[in-house]
């Protein structure tokens, strides 16, 4: 497909820029060229623990993402459509929205213990208010005309949600999902380096302590590569299908 080849070309340009920048800088310990990352990447992949850590991190990201999106969407929908409840929960939302990730993570570890539950809870609690804040805005903008139509024709609530509400929330939800995964993965990194014994975040911190920039980049980009794949193979096709009506 033409769009896929454009993606590749554009990625190559980005890599080209990077190579140029790295050559200009001339200090591979601070700004290594991507070419120099290939060999350590390959080593970590085939002999090293990269796949293991990537797996752990991905597992945490996926689980937290699903939990946070589900809870955040529900909360946002309720707050966006019920002004009375919104008034009540809005201050809570602001508080949790602005509670620093670090603080929440540390508190979770302290209260729940230094374990996986605490890690996931920390990420989910961090992300829910974010999703909710976005979804709430989308819910506030729901078309009153379509709602009237659905009321008059007594549409089933589940049908209404799926076929009337969700498509209207499309932009907000895909936006929240896309920036959501990114934010979640960033929080997972912090969670991992503060109190887990595996995962990309753990490795990045390890190499950061050793001041080994190339390895830090190898681990960062292994997840980014995964996300590029997910984006190209899942998110974009799904989005294309969901917004087909707009381009028709």
């Amino acid at each position, binding site marked *: 497909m033409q769009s896929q080849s454009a993606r590749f070309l554009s990625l190559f340009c980005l890599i080209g820029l990077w190579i140029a920048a790295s050559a200009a800088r001339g200090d591979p*310990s*601070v700004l290594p060229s991507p070419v120099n990352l290939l060999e350590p990447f390959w080593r970590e992949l085939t002999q090293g623990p990269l796949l293991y850590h990537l797996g752990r991190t991905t597992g945490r990201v996926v689980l937290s993402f699903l939990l946070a999106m589900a809870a955040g969407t529900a909360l946002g929908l309720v707050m966006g459509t019920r002004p009375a409840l919104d008034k009540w929960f809005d201050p809570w939302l602001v508080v949790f929205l602005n509670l620093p990730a670090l603080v929440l993570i*540390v508190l979770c*570890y*302290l209260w729940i*213990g*230094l374990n996986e539950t605490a890690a996931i809870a920390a990420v989910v609690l961090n992300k829910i208010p974010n999703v909710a804040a976005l979804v709430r805005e989308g819910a506030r903008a729901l078309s009153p005309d379509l709602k009237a139509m659905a009321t008059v024709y007594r549409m089933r609530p589940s049908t209404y949600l799926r076929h009337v509400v969700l498509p209207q929330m499309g932009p907000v939800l895909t936006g929240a999902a896309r920036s959501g995964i990114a934010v979640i993965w960033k929080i997972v990194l912090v969670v991992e*380096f*503060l*109190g*887990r*014994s595996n995962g990309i975040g*753990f490795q990045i*911190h*390890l190499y*950061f*302590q*050793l*001041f080994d920039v190339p390895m830090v980049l190898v681990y960062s980009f292994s997840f980014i590569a995964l996300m590029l794949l997910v984006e190209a193979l899942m998110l974009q096709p799904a989005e294309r299908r969901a917004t087909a009506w707009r381009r028709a």
Partner: protein
Amino acid sequence: ETTVRAAVLKTGTVNWELDTIQRAGLDKANGFELTLQPYADNGATRVALEGGQADVMVADWLWVAVQRAAGKDYVFLPYSTAVGAIVVPKDSPAKSLSDLKGKKIGIAGGPLDKSWLILRAYAKKEYGMDLAGETEQVYGAPPLIFKSALDGETDAAINFWHFLAKMKAAGMRELVSVGTASVALGLDPDIPLLGYVFKESYLADHPDVLKGFYQASRGAKELLASDDSAWEALRPMMNAKTDAEFTQLKTDYLAGVPKAGPVNEDGAATFFKLMADYGGEKLVGDTGALPAGLFAKVE
């Protein structure tokens, strides 16, 4: 007069020494002016030195050795020999490392922590035990390791020394000190693990700084060893909640003051090799050998 900008961890014990230097005017007396740039994270101090926003920082010599092997012109000036220990709750039945089989150990600083590596070597030598394989490790930020050890979530803990001091003050018991383990492994316990790090290029531009800084550092150490009132001045920044903590911190600090004079380079090389065996390439880089010129020439 030269200004020496020190990037320090705001909570680090190095502040005790640097503060004493400033307070006693040891910097001016030795021909430089010391300014402090406090940061909240060790990584920041490293970035500061590397990026040229600071002239000196504190790091452990293994790390410096690896950086030097990788081509950085870092040199190392001893600051402290203080090392960690592994502690267990007061009522723990454990008498030696071998009793930790199947137990959970909390480790601050990650799998490459020096104390942890030395203890692994020690367990191997003394008990033929693979400490890493036969126990479960929980890595975490020092305060979290501190807390989970006190709560009994872990059966033993290895932490940075000022947290160790607090843990001991809170009633935890030292199972083995890393000093003991080093001696048993035939290592020179006087090898300073922590030190000031300068760039050679900076020292070349400011030839008098190294000597002056060394004199000032020694001066501060002597003052702290001899004068209790110097400690009283430091007390506010030591964050000691009780007198017991204060005394423990003070004792442990003084115990970590290295001998004056040059570093035993052969001993250091042995040490480096041992670390290479346990920490692997990750820790010591791909050279495996101690890079020349690491230890600053003083005296």
